[in-house]
């Protein structure tokens, strides 16, 4: 192995190196979430704005843009998970015999459930991608924009997708745990990357909470508004494509 490879390997195998990977990948995912929430809020601007936005994403840089983003996010998520799972295992091993009388002085609840909030978010992300990106439900996959039947009706898909209270409940749980994760995670990024000292201590915690709360409100406003009927009636779901084929 050349010396750069060896250095990278050593960095990955060191406690601080792996934590820096967690912080950098976490920060990438947060930047994505900030863009994602702003884009999603376009549902409140109506069907046309939302569907234009969806079309724009699909055709960014002649269709390569979205794949660059998807692969980048996937790599970041995988690295984040592999590194955190390995760190958590090392941390458990480092205290081989636990205290009989356990006490916590100042660690927040969110900071103590990071692995569980993270794993729930993972389950949520998988569900969410199957729901709205892969669209395993062919009813949602085959919606067409009434004004422009050549394109998919993303707006209608969101409204139809949030008709099921169980789905909405899972979104509420998933997003709430994501925000719990971030209430500790964002401030943590500053510490792990060494961007914190007495002179700036404090604000990064408030910033973390502020972003977490804004994301929570932004993301959950959509399923909740849909359930309350603010986005209108769901589109009629047409029978799946196979049916007319069978009838022939």
């Amino acid at each position: 192995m050349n010396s750069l490879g060896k250095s990278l390997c050593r960095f990955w195998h060191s406690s601080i190196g792996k934590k820096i990977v967690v912080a950098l990948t976490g920060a990438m995912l947060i930047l994505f979430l900030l863009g994602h929430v702003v884009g999603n809020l376009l549902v409140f601007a109506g069907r046309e704005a939302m569907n234009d936005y969806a079309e724009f994403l699909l055709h960014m840089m002649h269709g390569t843009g979205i794949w660059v983003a998807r692969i980048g996010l996937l790599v970041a998520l995988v690295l984040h998970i592999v590194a955190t799972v390995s760190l958590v295992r090392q941390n458990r091993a480092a205290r081989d015999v636990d205290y009989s009388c356990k006490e916590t002085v100042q660690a927040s609840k969110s900071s103590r459930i990071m692995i569980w909030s993270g794993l729930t978010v993972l389950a949520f992300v998988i569900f969410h991608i199957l729901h709205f990106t892969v669209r395993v439900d062919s009813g949602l996959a085959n919606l067409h924009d009434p004004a422009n039947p050549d394109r998919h009706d993303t707006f209608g898909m969101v409204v139809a997708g949030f008709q099921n209270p169980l789905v909405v409940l899972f979104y509420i749980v998933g997003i709430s745990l994501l925000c719990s994760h971030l209430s500790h995670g964002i401030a943590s990024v500053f510490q792990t990357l060494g961007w914190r000292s007495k002179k700036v201590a404090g604000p990064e915690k408030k910033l973390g909470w502020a972003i977490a709360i804004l994301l929570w409100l932004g993301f959950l406003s959509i399923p909740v508004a849909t359930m309350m009927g603010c986005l209108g009636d769901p589109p009629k779901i047409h029978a799946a494509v196979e049916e007319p084929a069978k009838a022939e």
Partner: protein
Amino acid sequence: MNLTLKVWRQESPNDKGNIETYEAKDIPAEASFLEMLDIVNEEIIVAGGDPIHFDHDCREGICGACSLTINGVPHSKENGITTCQVHMRKFRDGDTIWIEPFRARAFPIVKDLVTDRASFDRIIASGGYISVRTGSAVDANSLPVNFEDASESFNAAACIGCGACVAACKNASAMLFVGAKAAHLNLLPQGEPEKDKRVLGMVRQMDAEGFGNCTNQYECEAVCPKEISTDVIAKLNRDYATAATREAVE
């Protein structure tokens, strides 16, 4: 005052160990915590038993020898003091007190509440020093140090190496100790030339000893008898990142 003690007893490093209950009777409120244990031990000895073993030395809060996790908190819930400076007047008659060792895989138990903290010495031997020619001291004014660096370094140098940070950390991480020892030297012109070597060496030894990783929960800072701030951990992260990058480029 009368107290019930729940004390960790462990015959030897390989013994499983368990919590034993003791009644501490007629303890004067002005006794220190360690004096309270001395009184209990006197009774155990008179009754022909094996006294409770615990670490201590100066009993002045300056050496870092005393340990003990008291009711789940290293050096007790009192802020900014070591166990030897805890006094019984802070407890109430009838209280039950849990007394356990500083728990970490890297601090193996020798007996009862006595732990082997030599892993800290090995970390210091991996970079927590400066290399200088001995001889007559250089003129103090020939090495200017700005006030801020001097006070930050001084605050870090207050670390007495007791290991409470490790004991309090949910992950038994030694980052506050290593951060303090590295910052103390890295901030000064005398320590600057060996900064990269120091940080890489100390962090690698810390990992090899089996300490956990920092999860930024700051339990260490809350129990540190010298109230060392987790700023030194942020600085260690920064210094490690730059040292590792320079090492990779070279």
